[in-house]
C-alpha cells in the first residue's frame, strides 16, 4: 500500500506540475482556462533523445509521435506556443548529466522529454530530481527511475524494463520449454530485462541456464551464437533494439539456429525492424505493451495520422512519444477535477482511487486493463500483443503505467 500511496501523491504532484506549466498556480485555477492561458509565455519543451547511433531511429520516432500530438492541438499545449530545445544524447550515459543540465540550467525548459537508453535515463533522474523539472520519459525503462531514484516530477509513458520480458515466463512454459538462454547488450536495460525474464520464468518452474552479454552497442554475435549452439537450450530469449535487433535476427538465421532453437524476446526485437530483416524475423515471438496489430479506434486513428504526416509506419516508440505529448496536454485539462479527487484520496488511501485521473488520458497503448494477461505476439504481428502483464515484482515503478492503463 505504501507504494501506491506514494504513487497517488506523485500523480497529484504531476497534475500540479503541469498546472504550473499552464501558468496557473493556485490563483490561476480560479480563472477560466482560456484567459489564464492566453497571456502565457511560450512553453519551453526540451527534447533529450538519441538522434545518432544505434537508437537514432527510436529518437526520431519518439520526436515524430510527440510532435504529432502537439500538432493535433494546433501546435500548442494548454494554449501556449511551444519553444523547442533539442539535445542529442547519443545514447551515451557518460554525457547524460551534463546534457540534461544544459536543458535545465541554460535553456531553463519547463518540461524535459526523454529518453531511450536506460543508462542515460539514470543520469537524467539524478539531475531532474535535484532541479524538480517536470519530466516525461517516453521510453527508457530503467527500473530505478520509478523505484529507488523516483521523484514527484517523474513520469513515464512506456514501461519498466522488467515488465517487457516478465510475461515471457508464461509463454515459454506454455510452449513446454524448461530452460532458456538470455542474450542481450550489457547495460541497465538488458540486465533488468534479463532479471525480469528470470523471475517470470522461474516462477513457472523454468531455468535460465546462461546469461550472455555483448557490449553496447556492438553487434558482433558470432562467438556467443556458437556458445548458444553448444549449450542447446530449449529456447533463446533476447533483448536488442533498433539496428542491433535487425542484425541479431539476421545472424541468428545465418548461424543456422533459426528453426532449431526457438527465439523469443521483448517486442523491441521485432518492432520497427521487421521490414529490414525479411524472413529472419518469422516465427519470433515477443511480448510488449504495444504491437501494430492492436485493434482499437484510438490506435487506428493514430496510425493513420502518423503515416500521413511522416510517410512512415509508426512503431512502439512513436506511440510512446505520442502518448507523452497527450499526457503533457492532458495535465492542464484535468486540473479542475483534481481537488475533488484529491480530497477523496485523502479520506480513502485506496490505491484504486488514486488511479482515477488517468482514465481521462486516452492513450494509444494498452487500452485494456492488463492484470494477469499473457501478452504474446507472434512474429511481431501480434494478435493480442497490446496487453501488458502487470503481475510482477511488487508493482515497483508502475506509477505512470497506472496512469496509462487503469
Amino acid at each position, binding site marked *: 500500500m505504501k507504494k501506491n500511496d506514494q504513487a497517488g501523491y506523485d500523480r497529484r504532484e504531476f497534475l500540479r506540475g503541469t498546472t504550473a506549466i499552464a501558468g496557473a498556480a493556485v490563483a490561476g485555477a480560479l480563472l477560466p482556462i482560456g484567459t489564464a492561458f492566453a497571456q502565457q509565455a511560450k512553453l519551453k519543451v526540451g527534447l533529450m533523445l538519441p538522434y545518432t547511433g544505434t537508437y537514432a531511429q527510436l529518437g526520431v520516432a519518439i520526436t515524430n509521435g510527440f510532435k504529432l500530438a502537439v500538432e493535433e492541438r494546433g501546435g500548442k499545449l494548454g494554449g501556449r506556443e511551444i519553444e523547442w530545445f*533539442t539535445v*542529442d544524447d547519443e545514447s*551515451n*550515459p*557518460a*554525457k*547524460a*548529466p*551534463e546534457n540534461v*543540465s*544544459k536543458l535545465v*540550467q*541554460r535553456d531553463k525548459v519547463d518540461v524535459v522529454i526523454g529518453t531511450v537508453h*536506460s*543508462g542515460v535515463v*539514470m*543520469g537524467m533522474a*539524478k*539531475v531532474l530530481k535535484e532541479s524538480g523539472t517536470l519530466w516525461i520519459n517516453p521510453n527508457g525503462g530503467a527500473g530505478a527511475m520509478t523505484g529507488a*531514484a523516483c521523484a514527484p516530477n517523474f513520469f513515464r509513458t512506456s514501461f519498466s524494463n522488467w515488465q517487457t520480458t516478465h510475461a515471457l515466463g508464461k509463454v515459454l512454459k506454455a510452449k513446454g520449454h524448461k530452460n532458456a538462454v538470455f542474450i542481450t547488450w*550489457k*547495460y*541497465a536495460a538488458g*540486465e533488468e530485462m534479463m532479471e525480469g525474464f528470470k523471475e517470470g520464468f522461474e516462477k513457472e518452474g523454468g531455468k535460465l541456464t546462461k546469461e550472455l552479454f555483448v*557490449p*553496447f552497442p556492438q553487434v558482433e554475435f558470432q562467438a556467443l551464437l556458437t556458445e548458444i549452439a553448444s549449450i542447446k537450450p530449449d529456447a533463446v530469449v533476447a533483448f536488442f533494439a533498433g539496428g542491433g535487433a535487425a542484425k541479431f535476427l539476421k545472424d541468428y538465421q545465418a548461424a543456422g539456429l533459426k528453426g532449431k532453437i526457438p527465439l523469443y524476446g521483448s517486442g523491441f526485437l521485432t518492432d520497427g525492424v521487421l521490414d529490414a530483416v525479411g524472413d529472419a524475423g518469422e516465427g519470433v515471438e515477443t511480448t510488449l505493451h504495444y504491437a501494430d496489430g492492436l485493434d482499437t479506434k484510438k490506435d487506428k486513428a493514430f496510425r493513420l495520422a502518423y503515416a500521413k504526416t511522416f510517410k512512415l509506419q509508426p512503431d512502439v516508440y512513436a506511440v510512446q512519444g505520442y502518448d507523452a505529448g497527450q499526457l503533457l496536454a492532458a495535465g492542464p485539462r484535468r486540473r479542475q477535477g483534481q481537488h475533488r479527487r484529491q480530497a477523496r484520496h485523502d479520506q480513502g488511501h485506496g490505491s484504486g482511487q488514486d488511479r482515477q485521473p488517468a482514465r481521462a488520458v486516452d492513450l494509444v497503448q494498452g487500452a485494456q486493463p492488463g492484470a494477469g494477461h499473457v501478452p504474446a505476439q507472434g512474429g511481431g504481428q501480434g494478435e493480442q500483443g497490446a496487453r501488458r502483464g502487470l503481475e510482477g515484482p511488487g508493482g515497483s515503478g508502475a506509477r505512470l503505467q497506472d496512469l496509462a492503463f487503469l
Partner: protein
Amino acid sequence: MNSSRFAQLLPWFVLGLLALFPLVENTFYMQLLTKVLIMAIFAMSLDLLVGYTGLVSFGHAAYFGLAGYTLALMSPGYEAVSLWWSLPAAIVVCALFALITGMLVLRTRGIYFIMVTLAFAQMLFFVFHDTKLGGGSDGAYIYVKPSMRLGDFELVNLEKAEQFYWLVLFLMAAAYLLLHRVLDSSFGRALLGIKVNEHRMRALGFPVFRYQLASFTLAGSLAGIAGYLAAVQYGFVNPEILSWHQSGAVLMMVILGGMGTLYGAVIGSFAFILLQEVLSNQAWFGAWAKHWQLAMGILIMLVALYLPQGLAGLAQKFRGKPVPESADD
C-alpha cells in the same frame, strides 16, 4: 607599475575575479567554469609529465577516473561522505596506483610509453566497464555530495554549487602553487634535465628512474584531485571518464595551452572547454552546432602543424620574447 610587477600580480587579479564570479552568475555558467577549473587541475598534472618530465602519457585519465570511482564506492547510499577523509583517500589510491603502474611503464620509452600508458588506462576502463563494481557501462551515482564538518558545524556543503565552486577554485590555486614550488626546486630542475637529455643526467649520477617515478606519482595524485572533484560536480561516474578519449582531450588541453608552462595548461582547459561550448551552441551556429567537432578537429590539426608552443607560445611571440625551450623540437 612596470611589466614584471604586472606579470606577478596578474594571476592574483585573475584569481580574485574568478572568486567573485558566483556573485554575478551562479547557475549554468558557474557550473561551466567549475568544470573548466577542474580540468585545469587535470591538465596541469599532465603538463608535469608531458611538459616537464618528457613523458607523453596517453592514459592519464586512468587516475582521474580512479579517484572518481573511489569516491563513488566510498559514498554510502543516501548520506554524505566526509570530505575530510574521502578526498585524501582518493588521492592515496591514485598515488599508489600511479606508483605501481609507474614502475612498469617507466621501463619503456617513446611510442611504447605512449601505448603502455594507454594499455593500463584501458585495463582500468574495462574493470569498471565490464564488472558490476561501479555500475558497469551505465556508471554509478553519488546521491549525496560530500560535506565537511567540524563537530556539529558544517564548514562546507558541496550540495551548494557556490561552495563547491570556491572549493574547486581554491584547490586549483593550491595545485598551481604546489607545482610551481616543486618545479622551482632542485627536483624540478632535475626533471627538466632528464627531459632534455636523460643519458647525461644519468651519467651525472642522478637516479633518473626514481625522479621520473616521483613525477609520475605526483601527476597521478593531482589528476586524482581533479577526478574526485569531477565526480562530485555531477554526482556521477562512468567508465567514459577513464577512456582514451578523455586522455586525448586532456592532452589537447595541455598542448593547446602550451606545454611546459603551468599557466598554459590552465589557458588550454579554458580554451578547449569554452570553444566546445561556443561551437556547439545551436543559437549561434544552428545546424552546424551539431558538427562542432569538425571545427574543433581542424583547429587541433592547425595547432599541431603551426602552433607547437600552443596559446602560451603565441602570447610570448606577441610580446617578442623568445619561446622557452619547453616543447620538443
